[in-house]
């Protein structure tokens, strides 16, 4: 662990000396991380790869955006430079970035994490992009300049109205979707709490736009070994089938997930 940048009382960014992972990372992929086995937790935890860090054109590290939620995320918040962190990756299916459409990224809270590398990639292909970003309060909106620098338009929302629109980020998203001309096309990417993902996928379908959502399931292994991380996905016969989100995802086509079975 190279650096622990605490952004708030709950959020921090951990920079990890893992250049090999950085080399291979595609936007939307994740790593399985562990800061040390404790009596309460022996398993690793999944984290989106937040940044791929370059120094003089060489990839030197990756970072993760961590939010304190329980045992492991608390330990990751408390780490000091030099502490050892086990980190396995990159894992999982990345976002699809072939699309020449306007890219709309929808982030809820720590769901911002996969969008830093996605925005980098979109910027390098000059895809126009918008970040819809919601948080509890203004103080929990992070890395805004980062996205602005890459040319992203920002649409912000906070639950307490302290910055941007008051309410959930799906509110401005719906407004924007309604304003889209019939020939305009957006590719919608979403990451955040599951109810938000469902709302985004439903809105996208309603307005005839494609969506990709990155789901967050409890993961035991991250490698397809344990079958803990499944989501119900529509199969050819329109039936629900549980698919391992660590290898079949975490990014899914929003329309493929059977939200009512979630």
């Amino acid at each position, binding site marked *: 662990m190279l650096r622990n940048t605490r952004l708030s009382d709950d959020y921090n960014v951990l920079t990890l000396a893992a250049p090999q992972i950085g080399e291979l990372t595609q936007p939307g992929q994740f790593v399985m991380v*562990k800061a040390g*086995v404790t*009596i*309460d*937790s*022996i*398993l*690793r935890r999944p984290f989106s790869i937040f940044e791929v860090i370059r120094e003089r054109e060489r990839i030197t590290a990756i970072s993760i955006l961590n939010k304190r939620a329980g*045992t492991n995320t608390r330990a990751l918040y408390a780490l000091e430079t030099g502490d050892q962190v*086990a980190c*396995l990756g990159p894992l999982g299916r990345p976002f699809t970035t072939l699309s020449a459409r306007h890219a709309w990224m929808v982030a809820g809270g720590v769901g911002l994490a996969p969008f830093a590398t996605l925005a980098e990639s979109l910027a390098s292909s000059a895809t126009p992009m918008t970040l819809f970003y919601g948080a509890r309060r203004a103080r929990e909106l992070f890395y805004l300049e980062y996205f602005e620098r890459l040319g992203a338009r920002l649409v912000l929302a906070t639950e307490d109205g302290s910055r941007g629109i008051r309410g959930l980020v799906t509110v401005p998203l719906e407004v924007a979707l309604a304003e889209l001309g019939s020939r305009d096309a957006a590719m919608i990417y979403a990451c955040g709490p599951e109810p938000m993902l469902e709302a985004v996928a439903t809105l996208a379908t309603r307005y005839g736009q494609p969506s990709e959502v990155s789901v967050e*399931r*409890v993961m*035991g*292994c991250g*490698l*397809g*070994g*344990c*079958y*803990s*991380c*499944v*989501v119900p996905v529509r199969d050819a016969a329109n039936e*629900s*089938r*549980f698919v391992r989100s660590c*290898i079949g995802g975490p990014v899914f086509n929003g329309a493929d997930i059977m939200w009512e*079975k979630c």
Partner: protein
Amino acid sequence: MDLRVTIGTLELPNPIIAASGCFGYGVEYDEIVDLSRLGGVAVKGLFLKERDGHPPPRIAETPAGMLNAIGLQGIGVHRFVREKLPLLRERGARTIVNICGTTLDEYAEVARVLSDHEGVSALELNISCPNIKEGGIQFGCSLVGTAQVTSAVRKVTRLPVIPKLTPNVTDVPSFARAAQESGADAVSLVNTFLAMAIDVETRRPKLSNLLGGLSGPAIRPIAIRMVWECFNAVRIPILGMGGITDATDVIEFMLAGSTAVQIGTANFADPFVWNKVLDGLDDYLRRHQMTRVTDLIGQIDTSPRKEVPV
């Protein structure tokens, strides 16, 4: 260093086997683990048909362990032999297929299908999964059921037959004996302990299925006891497991009477556990000037203690 062990007619290059349900179908690990280096790979439990398993949450962590109630989601034996077995065979893995059934006929049918295909090294009979209502544990918790499943499979295959015993009974050795007398070549133990956890804030069970199976280091001392009891009760080899995380744990299981061991939960925590364990085993034998790993089997020293170590 001679790490070879023998389970019935099956010879393994070393005693370290990936435990069923904890290593997918093996193929998922092809990129990061040399499948041929493992003693064997026990693949996820297979029914005749596909199964979707229980809704999530399917796992929860507990002190030094985890609960699972996957509900044996799986692709069924036919897709397995078509989609997964070829790669396992190609890699030279010694594939132990964990088979399930809701009826005796289903066990036999799954066994028959597998016996027809090259690349299957042994059949492990899952009569002990605590997470499904029909079949499985209903056989594994009765001596008659254990004998019936073992005989039914024995009749249709020449592959080594390895019933996997449940720890959720008063007297595990009697089940090992029932398996031996019905033609088993070995027994695997232990499967997970039936257990439960509650989220006190929501007051809901932590698993959608309410009950699940406890695995991981927490159960190791109980599993060691059961292996030792069974070692004293049967002649057939024992595949021991329950909470193994390193070479020391492997050796503990072998001293208690295991011929081979399986590693489950620890592979989730560290998928590179395999090399660590194999190297550690080698190192131990070297330090103790032993040349054959089989010399560890059952070699716990229970002679009266001369002096209390200080």
